């Protein structure tokens, strides 16, 4: 509660003195355990701000809403550590200018929510390095470990079963801060690269394309997993790929706004003879 009150005051001050034009946070949802994204532009709207352990959604995707940052004014946003990593990746991929972002950092343990010290992404670099060294326990999920033990055939069958429920609503894509493409490959229909049908092939095409596209970019915020209306455990795919990128390239995504994107950068002295 104290953290929430402090942040309400901070947001009001920054709005009043013109530092920020908007803050993106959370407000109560339609049931007691739900929170909704909130766009704060006035002091009255700041009074609706809620900050507690149920504020889970990674809000960073809203920052790349068309036109929001084009006036070069600053915007505040409530972020957990993984959200701060998202901001760094978006900056590294030239989607936003970190100088325009004021971070209201927070994290929670159990039901306790606490503020993270700092306002710009640089202020959190020590924290992010610490997370890299001691990743949260979610990286060792029992289901993920079970899948790791499967042979290729069993793993294929597992995912085929999971993907069979996919209805191609693309909630995973829309909820993902990294899916900012103006035109997604599945929306390209001349030619139609990816089948729109939600049959086995179409569902595999979509989910596998997305998994590869997020490799080295996903911060495991879980937005896709929570958004999926048919409960496909999407976090597991992305977690697996993130582990792979750490193992293969020593790349922990989102450490700083200048970190080179691992699969979109090129080095002349690369020892690999083949570049995909």
């Amino acid at each position, binding site marked *: 509660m104290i953290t929430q009150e402090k942040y309400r005051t901070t947001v009001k001050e920054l709005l009043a003195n013109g530092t920020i034009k908007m803050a993106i946070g959370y407000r109560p949802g339609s049931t007691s355990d739900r929170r909704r994204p909130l766009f704060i532009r006035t002091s009255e709207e700041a009074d609706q701000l809620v900050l507690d352990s149920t504020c889970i959604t990674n809000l960073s995707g809203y920052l790349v809403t068309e036109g929001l940052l084009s006036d070069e004014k600053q915007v505040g946003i409530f972020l957990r550590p993984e959200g701060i990593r998202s901001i760094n990746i978006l900056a590294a991929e030239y989607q936003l200018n970190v100088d325009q972002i004021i971070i209201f950092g927070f994290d929670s343990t159990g039901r306790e929510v606490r503020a993270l010290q700092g306002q710009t992404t640089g202020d959190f670099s020590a924290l992010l390095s610490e997370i890299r060294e001691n990743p949260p326990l979610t990286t060792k999920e029992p289901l993920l470990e079970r899948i790791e033990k499967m042979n290729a055939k069993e793993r294929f069958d597992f995912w085929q079963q999971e993907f069979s429920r996919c*209805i191609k609503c693309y909630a995973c894509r829309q909820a993902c801060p990294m899916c900012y493409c103006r035109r997604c490959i599945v929306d390209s229909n001349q030619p139609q690269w990816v089948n729109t049908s939600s049959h086995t092939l179409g569902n595999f095409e979509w989910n596998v394309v997305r998994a590869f596209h997020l490799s080295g970019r996903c911060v495991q915020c879980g937005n896709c997993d929570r958004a999926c*209306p048919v409960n496909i455990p999407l976090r597991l795919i992305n977690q697996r790929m993130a582990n792979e990128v750490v193992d293969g390239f020593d790349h922990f995504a989102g450490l700083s706004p200048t970190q080179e994107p691992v699969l979109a950068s090129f080095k002349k002295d690369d020892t690999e003879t083949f570049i995909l």
Partner: protein
Amino acid sequence: MTRILFSDKLDNCVAKWRSAGLTVIGPVQGESLSSYATVEKGTDLHLGLVLPDRSLKELFFPQTEPMLSYTIKKNEIETADFTPPSAPRIIFGARPCDASGLAIDDPLFGWDYKDEYWFQRRNESVIVTIACTKADDFCLCTSLKLAPDSTKGSDVLLRSLDKNRGWLVEELTDRGREAFAIISEYLQEGSEPALPTVEVPEKFNLDTCVTWLQNPENFDSKFWKEISMRCIGCASCTYLCPTCHCFDIQDEGDTYSGIRRKNWDSCSFALFTMHTSGHNPRSTQSARWRQRIMHKFNYFPGKFSVNSCSGCGRCSRQCPVDMGITETLQEISKL
């Protein structure tokens, strides 16, 4: 004298219907999702769910469906039609909102073109609905002038007895009577009181909302932008909706052979209205959300005299950003 179907006879009934050639379908809780699915025994049915995660619509209007196959040869083009295989079935344990959803869509699918896929399945399905004795925070049938015991779209309505002992049977259509004639040996005459249906509070005044929506001045109201600011533009509300019915037609294959399919599509997507020129008449998410609400409560009733919403609440229940029809109409009724 009413007839009663006791729960302990359900297995017999399912077996009897199956031996009469009917596929039996009902609510089933899977490992991570509930839906209407084929069952072999009465005990496979999960009749205690408020309602399945997925709606009944997809059994009539599948998310992807082949329409025809084509092969282009040197001097001729061969095509073959796919029509849904004849499969008489009984859906046991539908919820009134899901059954109503089908009735709402009937005039749409039979309007200027009679959709044979929809109607073949409609004509071959017996819908046995169970009146609701429980609801959750998202149920809103009463706000849509429907009820937890609406008979709309149903062939038989069942009302639950206490302690899950069974149901009072109300046969509503000839199709329902025929299906229950098959199991008449398992029905008993009786006159027990049924459990009361659940009280679903009215969440908004529909007439007030419709009047506001019908006023052309409100088409450009800034309300639309405000209410949909957090909409992320996924299609989960439309795809889980028991009445949303938009689809796209796609050819899958190559120049010489392939399959033409009918796939769900959604007004939530920018691509839905994108013109070949690149111009998009619904270029913003707020315009798309406005379209969804206007379509359900203004355009559709204007054409078919019925709202395109049966109050199941799935749109709000599943929304990743906690939006939905309930919130939007509640806010409109306050304007």
